[in-house]
């Protein structure tokens, strides 16, 4: 195992991307993700790669379309308002079925919002964001180590399915330092014979395109893509179960909220309350089966999230509203304290009960 070093989440993610063979990064600075761009600007020239600060987020995502079309691993990163700007390009990537890694280090919104951590882009990330019928694979790291591991995973899934992967993280995970082992992760080679990288007169030209004026054809493209999404939903769900064996209450939380929840769970356990957590690592595909299974066992769920309540809708859908789902949330850049989560656990503990 590589020696552990202290690194910021943003920097660890950037280094992992380079280790995963990404030699093209195009971005535009915005707090709290600027360290990714800064790190790339230092490192890329040294490995003969490309760092390009585009004139805007919109330009950056369109350059990603270009890089990806030529068969190279392409990446961009931003924070919430910048991701909104990129959404048009993301929809084009989806329509063209081009692999790409998009990183969103979320901050409070809507609008220009603030610069403190948030998870209020959950809907945007998991339900599309741009126009048209499409999904992104959405990965939610909860530690600096996962910033590394999920970057490898993200590129791999993107290439494997010709999909767009989004790493949905937040200002806290991006800015904090933790010991991290910069291990090489999955480095599979995938067929990219679809790439528009020059025929050299030896093959038919490839066309990458999201436009079809033939409605039947466009419908078929969407149906085909959703067949692929079905395979991903079947095979690529990732989640962590924490103290769920005897749990009567199930917290659902990702990223920084799951870290705060862990403190609350430990404290509640000390007080004799049986609470555990299912932490989605993939937000899409969402761990529906694991939650539905838990619904037969626990008396209540708590969705802990930094938004006005977005993931809670997916929790309710996943468990088919079999059990009550409480919401423990802060937003606008404020992070809930472990005590606030603990209070919500106590409230959930009163539900149904043993009376």
């Amino acid at each position, binding site marked *: 195992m590589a020696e*552990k*070093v*202290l690194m910021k989440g943003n920097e660890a993610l950037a280094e992992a991307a380079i280790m995963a063979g990404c030699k093209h990064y195009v971005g535009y600075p915005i*707090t*709290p993700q600027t360290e990714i761009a800064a790190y790339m600007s230092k490192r890329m020239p040294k490995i003969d790669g490309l760092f390009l600060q585009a004139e805007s987020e919109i330009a950056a995502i369109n350059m990603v379309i270009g890089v990806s079309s030529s068969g190279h691993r392409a990446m961009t990163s931003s924070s919430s308002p910048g991701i909104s700007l990129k959404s048009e390009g993301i929809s084009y990537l989806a329509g063209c079925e081009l692999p790409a890694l998009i990183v969103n280090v979320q901050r409070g919104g809507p609008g220009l919002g603030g*610069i*403190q951590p948030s998870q209020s882009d959950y809907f945007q990330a998991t339900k599309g964001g741009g126009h048209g019928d499409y999904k992104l694979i959405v990965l939610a790291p909860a530690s600096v180590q996962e910033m590394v591991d999920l970057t490898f995973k993200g590129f791999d899934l993107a290439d494997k399915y010709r999909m767009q992967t989004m790493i949905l993280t937040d*200002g*806290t995970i991006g*800015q*904090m*330092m*933790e*010991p991290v082992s910069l291990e090489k992760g999955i480095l599979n080679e995938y067929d990219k014979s679809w790439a528009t990288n020059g025929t050299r007169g030896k093959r038919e030209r490839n066309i990458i395109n999201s436009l079809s004026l033939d409605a039947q054809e466009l419908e078929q493209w969407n149906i085909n893509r959703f067949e692929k999404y079905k395979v991903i939903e079947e095979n690529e769900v990732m989640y962590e179960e924490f103290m769920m064996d005897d749990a009567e209450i199930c917290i659902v939380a990702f990223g*920084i909220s799951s*870290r*705060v*929840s*862990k*403190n609350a769970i*430990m404290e509640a356990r000390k007080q004799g309350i049986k609470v555990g957590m299912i932490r989605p690592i993939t937000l899409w595909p969402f761990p529906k089966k694991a939650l539905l299974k838990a619904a037969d066992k626990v008396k209540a769920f708590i969705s802990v999230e930094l938004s006005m309540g977005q993931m809670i809708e997916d929790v309710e859908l996943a468990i088919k509203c079999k059990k009550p789902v409480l919401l423990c949330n802060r937003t606008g850049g404020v*992070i809930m*304290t*472990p*005590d606030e989560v603990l209070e919500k656990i106590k409230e959930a503990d009163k539900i149904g009960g043993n009376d």
Partner: protein
Amino acid sequence: MDYKILIAGFGGQGILFSGKVIANTGLMLEKEVSWLPSYGPEMRGGTANCSINVSDNQIGSPIVSAPNVLVAMNLPSLEKYENDVDKDGFIVYDSSLIAKEVARTDVNASKIPATKLASDNGLEGLANMVILGKVLKETKMFTLEQIIKSIEKVVPAKKQELLGKNVKAIEIGYNY
């Protein structure tokens, strides 16, 4: 070992760096550690703070909301965080900048004129390291040797001439 440390003061006092030294020493000793800075406008001349966890156990939240070690390097920080400190926790503050006593009686409070000691010894700007020395002495979090070894790693190669000064500053705080 389960330290939840909050260092707070003005931007520019080296708050984040002293936190980094602590986190690095923890890493060197194979503890679980996390380091989280305040970021954004706060850093630019306003208040700055830094949450550090050093523990034998896996760390949940990297945010320290109830510290058992508070290091206050200006008055607003002491006033803001004094009441958040765990019972029996430690408060160490710079008495050259804070002309106030800690009101709480259920914590271990100690003061050191860190900024003055630094400037008296030609170590301007190293009050953060002076106070860190005092923190070590009070909490026994690490030994002096351990922290010096860690500083050797944290100080960048280009700035090795600062190494001696940092070590001297810590020793002054430790022996105060």
